[in-house]
């Protein structure tokens, strides 16, 4: 018997999982509302997925297939450590393919591929309170949520326009959920905000350090805040992905050399790989057959 056998299924004990599930149910019942919960130690430091990790720990079952995303990629730190962790403590299957996963733990991206009913997207959230930097008192921000006083959120957007001529907030762009609560969609690029709107999948947001869980149930309105004369817009890229030629996806800039060479590639590695396997080739991409590492 391996040492791992002494852990409970999913690492957390059953009482804790029950407590988290209750919080999740409450969060689903009140979309966008931050539900407090007790925080248990996870075998990882804060900021490395304790909040997002607790979500899967509470809802994972033996039949689940887990995928991890860190800034869009499947091979960066959190994506490289959290799925193997659950493979160990819950003996679940892991995958990098969005379509095959039932639970997707993500750090700051929503997959390009449309999610389907039955999938759960679990976001890692560093700061759950969208009003935090405008109003530092937590007692006051809770009151503002309770009384639906969200004028202050627009003060921030006003400041953006006054200073930069446009709404310069590009990530953690505030949204209103189901016409009621203003929510921080975690530091995802605002490019992903429209994907949260009426998604078929359940979206959970876990903040480990701040001990909050909130949720967007499937088919729920998620509307980005804006002004009538400065409507919400997502980022646009002037060129397609250099590897797979995809357009209308979120791209990362990759520096190639020390002489200013750079390329734009899909931030979602699974999306890029799937497209290349299907034969799409970008300006700098080689077909998978010719490339040495495939």
């Amino acid at each position: 018997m391996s040492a791992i056998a002494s852990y409970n299924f999913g690492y957390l004990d059953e009482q804790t999982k029950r407590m988290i599930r209750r919080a999740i149910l409450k969060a689903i019942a009140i979309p966008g509302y931050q539900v407090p919960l007790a925080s248990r130690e996870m075998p990882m430091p804060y900021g490395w997925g304790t909040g997002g990790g607790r979500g899967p720990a509470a809802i994972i079952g033996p039949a689940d297939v887990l995928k991890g995303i860190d800034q869009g990629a499947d091979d960066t730190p959190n994506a490289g450590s959290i799925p193997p962790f659950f493979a160990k403590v819950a003996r679940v299957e892991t995958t990098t393919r969005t379509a095959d996963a039932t639970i997707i733990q993500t750090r700051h991206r929503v997959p390009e591929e449309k999610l389907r009913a039955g999938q759960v997207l679990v976001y890692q959230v560093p700061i759950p309170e969208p009003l935090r930097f405008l109003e530092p008192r937590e007692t006051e921000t809770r009151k503002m949520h309770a009384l639906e006083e969200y004028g202050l959120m627009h003060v921030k957007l006003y400041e953006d326009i006054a200073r930069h001529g446009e709404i310069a907030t590009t990530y953690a762009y505030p949204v209103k959920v189901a016409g009621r609560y203003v929510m921080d969609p975690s530091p995802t690029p605002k490019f992903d905000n429209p994907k949260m709107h009426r998604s078929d999948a359940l979206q959970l947001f876990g903040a480990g350090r701040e001990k909050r869980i909130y949720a967007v149930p499937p088919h729920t309105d998620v509307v980005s805040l804006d002004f009538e004369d400065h409507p919400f817009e997502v980022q646009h890229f002037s060129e397609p992905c250099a590897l797979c030629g995809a357009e209308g996806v979120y791209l990362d800039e990759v520096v190639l050399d020390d002489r200013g060479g750079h390329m734009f590639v899909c931030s979602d590695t699974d999306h890029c790989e799937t497209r290349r396997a299907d034969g799409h080739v970008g300006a700098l991409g080689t077909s998978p057959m010719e490339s040495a590492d495939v």
Partner: protein
Amino acid sequence: MSDEALLRVNGLGKSYGSRIGCTDVGFELWPGEVLAIVGESGSGKTTLLNCLSTALDPTRGRAEYRMRDGAFRNLYDLGEAERRFLMRTDWGFVHQNPADGLRMTVSAGANVGERLMAVGERHYGRIRATALDWLTRVEIATDRIDDQPRAFSGGMRQRLQIARNLVTNPRLVFMDEPTGGLDVSVQARLLDLLRGLVADLGLAVIIVTHDLAVARLLSHRMMVMKEGRVIEAGLTDRVLDDPREPYTQLLVSSILQV
């Protein structure tokens, strides 16, 4: 002035344990009327003002306010949501220290625009136009609209705070020593400005001050407080020219003559 009061206060009192903050205060305030509350420090002026503006819950008494629909409501029976709504639409509060009433880290324009956004204005161009208009009215150069109040002088901050409060056309404004801490020439200009705005907009004002000259210049009526009680009330000129209570006489005779 209308023939119906805006605010009716009855038997209002606030105790801190066995100590009295203020007690047995009653008065009526009409639309467009400026009422000064004067007295030395510790006399209960600020406690009274905080009770009236619902920042403090009084221990006893009532204060009935005529809402925009004409119905009188006891302020202390209102829900918190209603009170806060009143506070950012129909009321204003000008603090002695502008930093208490302003957001020091957002621009002047956003400071003025915040109340508009709080009541649902979602058009940047209109918010900005209104902010520019108000900056002009309080004599702040319009090219300072994107500066933070941190970069403003004390007098400018105070004028900005006034603009921020008046932008939603309130009917009642509370002021707590609005000219405190300003030098006399700046004070004079601010008083001039306030007098003009109050008259133009028909504001009702309750102003707390220890400066009798400010009370003389701004207010129609005044109440003199001592040890938590109103000891004398009447038309400002009457109280200052013909004080009846010995304490009021002392107060009036204490004014320094230059």
